[in-house]
């Protein structure tokens, strides 16, 4: 080792390290006592997972394409067809006990205490229109104009099955185009903030996902219109207590509207569940059930966005896919006074999507 390198090593060792949270051990013991578990990798030599993953991917692609072809042809013979899913869904006729998906392997546990409806501050929610500007960039360099757009979220009071509910509707447009309704609508219980019903529309209305939730179950239908309309449905047993908060919003877009009710504070942490796609397109095709979404206040920043300058909690959100292999991360900046998400960053597989609050309009 050269003298220069020795000097460098010495200088590196002297770089300061901040003090860590003195309550970290208490948090560790508390989480373990609550049943939180983390599956750790081996402390031994690294296994060549990268090559194994490549081999597995190739196998899945070859085997999967054959299997999907076979499964879909079986389903076509028994599918509901072009019937309107809405009436069926609300009457609950489509989902028999036999259609219940198999239990997911190795269910993940929430990392932090579950957020219960009793801990929410519902007085901080108010009707309004939030307009966001989004920008998607790849490798921190390229911005794709097609993803340079706006999203407007509307939160209004309404009712669902006679009970008070919040209604969240979504409008979107690419840059320079007028905003228009996407058709996405969600109803959440006004007291528990748990989803009751949602309609998601994609591909110019050709794909529709309808979901409804009872206290213990979720019902989902997927309709794909084309030369032949396909219809799939599924049932999910909710693996968490009836007063635990959850969202069926996989990309945490609508859920932003409800963040104001969560009692964020310095060092606060809590977990909710996220439900994913569970409609069955054949035996064993359940792709995602319900996984924990871990939320943590990571710091405090002052943030300037087109809608103004805000004193914010910097909130990290992280969810894991089944098997705890892939994690998805968001960072949101939530204004401390109003509870609005004024900026968010979503980490995709090879891109980052930034969103900033452009304007807020109160509704009378």
């Amino acid at each position, binding site marked *: 080792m050269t003298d220069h390198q020795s000097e460098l090593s010495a*200088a590196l060792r002297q770089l300061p*390290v901040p003090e860590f949270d003195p309550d970290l051990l208490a*948090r560790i013991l508390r989480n373990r006592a609550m049943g939180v578990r983390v599956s750790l*990798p081996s402390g031994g030599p690294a296994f060549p997972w990268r090559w194994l993953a490549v081999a597995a991917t190739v196998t899945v692609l070859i085997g999967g394409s054959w299997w999907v072809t076979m499964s879909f042809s079986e389903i076509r013979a028994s599918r509901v067809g072009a019937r309107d899913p809405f009436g069926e869904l609300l009457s609950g006729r489509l989902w028999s006990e036999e259609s219940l998906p198999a239990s997911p392997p190795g269910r993940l546990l929430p990392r932090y205490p579950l957020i219960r409806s009793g801990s929410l501050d519902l007085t901080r929610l108010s009707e309004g229109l939030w307009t966001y500007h989004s920008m998607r960039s790849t490798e921190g360099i390229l911005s794709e104009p097609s993803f340079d757009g706006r999203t407007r979220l509307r939160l209004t009071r309404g009712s669902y099955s006679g009970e008070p509910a919040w209604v969240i509707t979504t409008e979107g447009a690419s840059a320079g185009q007028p905003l228009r309704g996407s058709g996405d609508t969600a109803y959440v219980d006004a007291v528990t903030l748990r989803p009751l019903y949602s309609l998601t529309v994609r591909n110019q209305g050709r794909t529709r996902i309808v979901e409804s939730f009872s206290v213990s179950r979720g019902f989902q239908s997927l309709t794909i219109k084309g030369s032949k309309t396909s219809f799939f449905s599924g049932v999910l047993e909710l693996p968490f207590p009836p007063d635990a908060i959850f969202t069926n919003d996989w990309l945490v877009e609508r859920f932003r509207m409800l963040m104001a009710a969560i009692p964020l504070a310095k060092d606060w942490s809590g977990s909710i569940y996220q439900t994913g796609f569970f409609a069955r397109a054949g035996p064993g095709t359940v792709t995602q059930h319900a996984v924990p979404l871990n939320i943590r206040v*990571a710091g405090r920043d002052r943030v300037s966005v087109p809608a103004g300058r805000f004193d914010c909690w910097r909130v990290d959100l992280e969810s894991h896919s089944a098997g705890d292999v892939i994690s998805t*991360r968001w960072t949101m900046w939530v204004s401390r006074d109003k509870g609005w998400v004024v900026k968010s960053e979503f*980490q995709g597989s090879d891109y980052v999507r930034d969103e900033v609050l452009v304007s807020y309009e109160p509704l009378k």
Partner: protein
Amino acid sequence: MAIPVPSPAEGVAELAEQTRAGSPAALGALYRRFGPGLYRLAYRLSGSKEDAEDIVHDVFVGLPEALQRYEERGRLDAWLKRLTARIALMKLRAGRRRATLRLEDHDTATEPQRQPETGELQAAVDALPLSLRSVLVLKEIEGYSHSEIAEMLGISAVASRVRLMRAISRLRRTLGENR
């Protein structure tokens, strides 16, 4: 919550055995003994206090189950460090480093006070890509051999040497440009 305190006379092997059996007191004792060193390693790899705390949290929350696989052929502290480094690298690969999220008026209350010289060096280390920074930290700060780093990162010892040379070269270039 009250944190149980074990007898200071207990050895590491006994503590590992008790932790494996589910004793919170033993887990707490291992944390006190090894937690600060693992936190320093996690911080140097991640460059973020929050990420480092998360990593240490995960290590100790998962430790009783992970110890079932620990065969006591090597030292526990070395095994824990390898485990911590691996978790840190997994997490960092899964998500972009939070260091890039720094905003204006960043909350600096919890950050260490830096001298101008160390500030420059830290910034240069932070600017290194993860593949180079991990080798630099493991070799130059933690003192691992290239073959150990190779095992830890799943690369060859030659690749570890090359990455270290590149990391040092980049550091010198960055620091030279700032002078």
